[in-house]
């Protein structure tokens, strides 16, 4: 099969994402103070929940995550390494503390307070503490969870992704946080990478960069969390823990982000070239956020269980309140 023939099934979906992205720029250009990336999510969610995504467009729309990850790799070009190194130890400390503390807290709340059992509390804890749906799926694979438990936990995480995507920028504005404070706060408190980046950019470009970088640091802990869970559940299903598992779960695009940040800060590329790379990154984010909106299904969210929602809600409130206090104090 030639490359053209292989690409053909993706064209309708890519066209849909492109039209959504173009529309979001037109709407944002017409309304003062409106961010194109926020409009992109809104347009996607509107289409996804009214007419729905056409079957023919499904393969192409599914490329949104590749666009998001490539956009993040290119975001490396906008990173001023000195600035991030200066705040690095503080942000890294916050990330490790919120992931480790968040996992224990979510397990405790789900099992102790809401009487959930089996692997569901661990799936919810991983989704809420590390990186959303991808963490749910990765930990579900490690723990040999039932497909229904993974779907249930993933739907719960998606519900909170949709709610926090709207709530965090509003709260950040109301609390009067700086771009850096808001970005780090969203980066350690929210769940999935796409909504974290979208919420960050909805506040300001600076917040978007900090939110994405903080979230990447959190995502990079997924391998370690997978190993910890496989060891904790040894009696049930520990298979192949160690370096191979750690590497299998490591988000590889993070290496690309670091490589691009290194090139951008080496002085090799001119400011005009870096600005152009930034525009490509923005375009990819807009396409990805239309896809993110299309994946938000309000009807499916109504089917999520009350106990799981309660457990994740308590976890989110506690973690985001503590993280808010920390970013205000430390940054």
């Amino acid at each position, binding site marked *: 099969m030639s490359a053209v023939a292989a690409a053909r099934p993706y064209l309708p979906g890519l066209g849909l994402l492109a039209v959504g992205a173009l529309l979001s720029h037109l709407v944002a250009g017409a309304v003062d103070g409106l961010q194109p990336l926020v409009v992109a999510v809104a347009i996607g969610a509107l289409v996804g929940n009214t007419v729905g995504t056409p079957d023919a467009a499904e393969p192409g729309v599914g490329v949104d995550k590749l666009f998001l990850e*490539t956009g*993040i790799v*290119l975001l490396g070009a906008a990173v001023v390494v000195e600035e991030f190194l200066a705040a690095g130890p503080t942000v890294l400390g916050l990330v490790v503390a919120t992931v480790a503390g968040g996992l224990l807290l979510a397990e405790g709340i789900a099992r102790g307070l809401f009487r959930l059992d089996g692997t569901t509390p661990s799936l919810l804890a991983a989704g809420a503490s590390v990186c959303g749906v991808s963490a749910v799926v990765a930990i579900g694979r490690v723990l040999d969870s039932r497909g229904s438990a993974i779907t249930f936990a993933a739907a719960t995480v998606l519900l909170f992704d949709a709610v926090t995507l709207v709530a965090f920028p509003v709260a950040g504005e109301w609390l009067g946080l700086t771009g850096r404070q808001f970005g780090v706060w969203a980066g350690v408190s929210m769940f999935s990478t796409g909504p974290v980046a979208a919420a960050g950019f909805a506040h300001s470009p600076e917040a978007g960069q900090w939110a994405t970088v903080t979230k990447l640091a959190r995502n990079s802990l997924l391998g370690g969390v997978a190993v910890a869970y496989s060891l904790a559940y040894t009696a049930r299903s520990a298979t192949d823990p160690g370096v191979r598992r750690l590497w299998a779960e490591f988000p590889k695009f993070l290496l690309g982000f670091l490589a*691009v940040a290194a090139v951008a800060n080496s002085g090799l590329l001119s400011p005009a070239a870096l600005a152009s790379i930034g525009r490509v990154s923005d375009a990819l984010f807009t396409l990805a956020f239309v896809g993110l909106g299309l994946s938000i299904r309000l009807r499916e969210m109504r089917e999520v269980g009350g106990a799981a929602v309660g457990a994740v809600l308590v976890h989110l409130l506690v973690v985001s309140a503590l993280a808010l206090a920390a970013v205000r104090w430390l940054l």
Partner: protein
Amino acid sequence: MVSDAADEPGSPLVDRWTALDRGWQALALGLGVVAVHAAAQAAGVF
């Protein structure tokens, strides 16, 4: 015999690309974009 396009053996490049983990694909695309910009700068575009 008429052969179906889907039955044809895949091109090595397409097969290799689809077999890649999404993280590696993103990394390759990102570095590709940076490489194009570096080449364009060398050619005097930027």
